[in-house]
């Protein structure tokens, strides 16, 4: 079936296997993206019958001069940077811990993974309660200044509250990926290194880490993507407050388009975000690919 001579036969083969996927892909992915991009050049406000006028790059201009947009993007980059580092360090550490052969490691694996099973909205509310009630209770009780007022009341502390909750939520998931990576390392390599007298530290840096680059690629990519597009935790934990200082980019775009009813510029911003995330993600994967080695 791979040797058809005539075009018509080739088409038949393609249709047999590809028609439905191609159709579905175009309808649910390609079309929305294209119409979405198309809308950024018009005055469309969200429902049919509204004035549909071609305005060129007016919406993009509006997005580019919006200081709140850049502010929000800056906060998001800061947030992505910290969650990326903390999530992956902690996840990698946990993975090493629960594969070290300690007692009850399966129980710990499950425990560390559980936060990831709780939906972001619920999780946000739980942590809101922790930050604005539980923590203050202990802060007052133990007389610790930094804990005795709600972290959600100040812009810096609520930013860190967001980071903490996201790291707590995502570390368990990334841990699983790292565990898979660790398990995949050929045991004979480690045994040989052991016999040669390599320290645990050296084994880690010269054998485990280089061989686990694919796991890092996936984890970093997932954390990047999740952090850039986070919405649920942001909504239920801080709701962008206080004074819109923790409004991350996805939420900013949503508010702009649906709450403040600037559909065009909101959509334009979403497209700008798409391009930024795409560039960063592709660069990251490209760099990581180069680092991969074979045992």
């Amino acid at each position, binding site marked *: 079936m791979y040797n058809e001579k005539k075009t018509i036969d080739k088409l038949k083969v393609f249709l047999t296997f590809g028609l439905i996927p191609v159709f579905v892909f*175009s309808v649910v992915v390609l079309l929305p993206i294209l119409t979405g991009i198309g809308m950024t050049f018009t005055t469309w406000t969200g429902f049919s019958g509204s004035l549909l006028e071609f305005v060129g790059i007016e919406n993009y201009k509006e997005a580019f001069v919006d200081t709140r947009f850049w502010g929000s993007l800056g906060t998001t980059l800061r947030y992505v940077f910290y969650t990326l580092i903390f999530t992956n360090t902690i996840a990698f550490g946990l993975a090493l811990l629960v594969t070290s052969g300690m007692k009850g490691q399966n129980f710990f694996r499950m425990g560390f993974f559980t936060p990831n099973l709780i939906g972001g909205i619920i999780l946000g509310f739980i942590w809101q309660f922790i930050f604005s009630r539980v923590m203050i209770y202990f802060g007052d009780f133990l007389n610790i200044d930094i804990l005795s007022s709600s972290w959600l009341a*100040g812009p810096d502390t609520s930013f860190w509250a967001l980071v903490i909750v996201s790291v707590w939520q995502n570390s368990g998931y990334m841990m699983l990926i790292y565990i898979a990576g660790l398990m995949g390392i050929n045991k004979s390599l480690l045994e040989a290194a052991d016999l040669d007298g390599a320290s645990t530290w050296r084994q880690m840096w010269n054998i485990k880490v280089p061989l686990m680059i694919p796991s890092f690629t996936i984890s970093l990519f997932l954390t990047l993507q999740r952090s850039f597009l986070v919405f649920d935790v942001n909504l239920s934990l801080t709701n962008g407050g206080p004074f819109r200082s923790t409004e991350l980019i996805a939420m900013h775009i949503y*508010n702009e388009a649906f709450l403040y009813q600037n559909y065009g510029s909101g959509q334009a911003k979403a497209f700008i975000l798409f391009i930024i995330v795409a560039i960063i993600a592709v660069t990251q994967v490209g760099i990581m690919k180069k680092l991969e080695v074979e045992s």
Partner: protein
Amino acid sequence: MSGGKKMKKLSVWFLMLVASLVLFACSGDDQSEETDAGNNNQGDAEETNEGDIDLEGTEISILLGKPEIAGQFETAVDEFSDETGIDVTIIPLAGANAFEKMSSLYSSGNAPTISMMAAEFETFQDRLLDLSNEPWMENVQPGMTDFVEVDGKVYGQPLTVEAFGFIYNKDVIEAATGEEFDPSTINSHDSLEALMIALDEYEGADAIHVSPMDWSLGAHLTNPLFAAQAEDRDERHQFMQDMIDGNASLAENDVFLGWMKTIDIMKEYNQNAASPLAPQYDDGPSAIANGEVGLWFMGNWAYPQLKEIDPEGEYGFIPVPISNNPEDYGNSQISVGVPSYWVIDESQSSTEEQEAAKEFLNWLVSTERGQHHYVNEFSLIPVFDNFEIEPQDPISQSVLDYMKDLNTLEWMNLYYPADGFPAMGAGLQQYLVDIWGKEELINDFESYWESVE
């Protein structure tokens, strides 16, 4: 290898073909829908000429924007259906905001016959039915339909009124001052501050709880700033226009400066002065109903929660003063307004549906059973003077008192742009925590309003 390449080329072509087919199919659908709608309208017009229409069996849908009364509303609707034979479907908002939901319903050709809307009105106005000649128009209280009036035609029935101001806890205040409390005596900066001082010095409670949510600060607390600008409606709307045009200077505006003074008083005696942005909404009802504070800036919608904590508590409203002269407009008034309106769709509903919808709105406010549901079950404050039943709780009574004396401020916040309250709310939050001073706040307000198109 070359076969693979060809295959790739082919698949690209094919992809484009499918995409264009789908596009074509979609646009085709749109057209046929439109013509359908056109036919419908023609048919409707003929039917109207025939005169009386039997509404039995007509199906209408209602988009309900108040999830808190969904259960009670359903009971009322069932009763209405039994009486008239009109079938009613309730569409819940289900977490979406009204604008979002309406947009998608209208776009998909499933416009609800009756919707509850507020700020969305402007966008949808040309698709709505003129209700000027409805019987309830004779009973509606003056000023309550201003927002939905366009070229002398009224397009909406006010749902209810809501009010906000300082809610006081009578017991706490009387315990603090040691005398009978008369809310009408609080009508200036000095009298408000004296009350705050008395509460502050009283051992058992703090003076005031300030809820720092942006909607409370940005949409409600800012209302007197605009509404108390002038007693004349055109004049105060002109002030808002001046703000947009950049012609108003807040630093020289007496109402603004007086209003700021009240904010300063609130700030000084705030129960949570150490961390003003920490409280959540739920801290408010618990603070005032448990007698931890004497005052709370909020609206009558908080009453169910107050009642849950302390059913015997006596509460009421006092105004947000904007000057030290008790005679000034705004010092004896609280902000009372219509939070949303019932509107009927004209563009996608048949004449029967429109008539049935009118019938429902009439039933709700003109019949004994409708009024019973309205007041006792939905706990709404009526906006019509033909109501036999009045709400009995102290908060609603307080609102009714202000309304009877015509001591109400217009809800100017209905005319804020959609991003108005978050912007001004954020400014006030920064003022509360002293990140900003008065000057920065003035600059922020002025530059926000100038950015409005």
